[in-house]
């Protein structure tokens, strides 16, 4: 059934921009796709491997700034700059990840948060990134609706690639290895799991996918500034979305991202950015206190509680 649902959803999403849809719904879905990509990408290292990164904004911003830099300075096509942004974010993850991944638990969380804030501080002070003035890019002379459609598809592609990658990791051999790492690194080593290589790969993949989303986003905004490209809010949002949906599954973060994005949007439209952030912050606190394991496991528990026929005794397997 899930395959049919996925196919149906894909068709709907593909034709959606052509059924007389205005710019607003396209923009809303575009940002939802971005959140989905961020949450699913974060979950590869944060959920599967259990390394709680609070610095993913660094990868997002690096992807965006790489795009901006090469667009402005080298005139490269955005189709090239976004993957380039992914590569830079991944390379940075490879470099910074090595010392960070030697830390565990709260230390990893705190150091990655420092990392996110540090990259912001550095970019804010470097002249060739536009520093505090930010960086302007020129968009092609598209009509607004054309631009919205183009970015809709671009971000849909990013989200799709990210979800497929996350799913493949989760359901494949690497997923089992990452789970073992999450539960007990020494025990994982003792059965032959290459712990360092595996968690580095997970971080690099996660960072690259996050950078890819950042690259597209930067080009769409056409003006980038450290304040929103390296926003700590974004790092925490990624954590929250994955957490809300459930960190153990590949699909949980998708659900979390959609919920968060829609609530965020509704709040911003209703009460304005500032009040929205106040309510959002408090809501964040409330949700995390009430549902520390996310919505998905909670829903599953509800389902299990529902009356069902007495459990069948597992059939004894014949011994060879």
């Amino acid at each position, binding site marked *: 059934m899930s395959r049919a649902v996925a196919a149906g959803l894909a068709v709907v999403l593909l034709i959606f921009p052509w059924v007389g849809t205005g710019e607003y719904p396209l923009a809303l879905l575009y940002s939802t796709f971005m959140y989905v990509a961020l949450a699913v990408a974060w979950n590869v290292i944060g959920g599967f491997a259990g390394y709680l990164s609070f610095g993913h904004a660094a990868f997002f911003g690096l992807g965006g700034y790489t795009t901006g830099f090469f667009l402005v300075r080298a005139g490269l096509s955005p189709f090239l700059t976004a993957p380039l942004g992914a590569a830079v974010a991944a390379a940075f993850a490879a470099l910074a990840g090595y010392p960070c991944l030697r830390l565990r638990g709260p230390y990893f969380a705190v150091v990655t948060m420092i990392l996110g804030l540090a990259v912001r501080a550095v970019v804010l002070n*470097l002249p060739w990134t536009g520093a505090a003035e930010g960086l302007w890019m020129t968009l092609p002379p598209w009509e607004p609706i054309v631009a919205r459609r183009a970015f809709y598809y671009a971000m849909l592609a990013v989200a799709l690639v990210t979800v497929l990658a996350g799913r493949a990791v989760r359901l494949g051999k690497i997923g089992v290895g990452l789970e073992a790492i999450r539960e007990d690194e020494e025990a994982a080593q003792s059965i032959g799991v290459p712990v360092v290589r595996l968690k580095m790969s997970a971080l690099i993949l996660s960072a690259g996918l996050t950078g890819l989303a950042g690259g597209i986003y930067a080009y769409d905004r056409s003006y980038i500034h450290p304040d929103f490209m390296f926003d700590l809010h974004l790092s925490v949002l990624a954590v929250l979305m994955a957490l809300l949906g459930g960190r153990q599954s590949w699909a949980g973060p998708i659900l979390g991202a959609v919920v968060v994005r829609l609530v965020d949007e509704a709040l911003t439209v209703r009460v304005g950015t500032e009040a929205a952030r106040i*309510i959002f*912050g408090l*809501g964040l606190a409330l949700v995390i206190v009430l549902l*520390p394991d996310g919505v998905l496991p909670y829903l599953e528990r509800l389902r299990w509680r529902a009356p069902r026929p007495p459990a069948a005794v597992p059939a004894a397997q014949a011994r060879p």
Partner: protein
Amino acid sequence: MAQVLQALVTGLLTGSVYALLGAGFSLIWGVAHVINIVHPALAVGAAYAVYLLAARGVDPLASLAVVVPLFFLLGVGFYEGVIRPAARRGGDLVLVSMVLTFGLAAALENVLAAVWGPGPRVVNVAYTGRAVQLGVLALPITHLAGAGLATVTIAALYLFLHKTFPGKAVRAVWQNPEGAALCAINLRQVTSLTYGLAIASAGVAGVALALIYSFSPASHLMWLVFVFLVVIVGGVGSLVGVVVAGMLVGALTNLSTLVIPFAWAPFFLFASLGVLLLLRPTGLFRR
């Protein structure tokens, strides 16, 4: 040479405020296992309280009489009303506490921005802009007052932790929660007390930073970075470690601006943290 000395001393003075913020943060981390992201935001909140009172002619130092008890109660209430229920629901407390306290920090930041606007504020007192001349050194009185406040508070914390019975209980839990539980220490009382004291110390740090710096609703993020640095370098569970780290970070930040362009100072700071982590990934945190 005079320039270096000036930078060093000013760095140490501001470092003492980092140390004070770091001490409270580290206490909460070690005792309650909470990464209290809202810590510097509360200090900035205290700075705004000072600003509010100063506008009515209350000296920042006198405002301590309001800030300290208020923040102590806030801390106890926050632990009993929010953190404890959250911890009892299970889940990964590190993760839960980070998201939770970030949410509160974001809310507080935006409340401050809604009331006072996003721009920076300065507290003006009679002695603002005046300095004590000490040989080649010119030490701003506000810096001295802020650092003095921080030093006195840290000393008081030290005496409390080492000389009083409840203080020793806090220290025991800070350094070894499991062992402390075996000694029949009432964990809830100790944690509640720790939270109160730590938040009160954040209030004092806020008063100190209001004396020394300009501040805006968003400046807690920068302070968060310094608090993190101080606690990572100094380790969780040691007041002395945190104080040394605070001084070190303060002095290094100031000195680095002498030898490298200002723009690269943060880069230098974080690169040295990276090297530190690479060389002593776990050793740093050993008590």
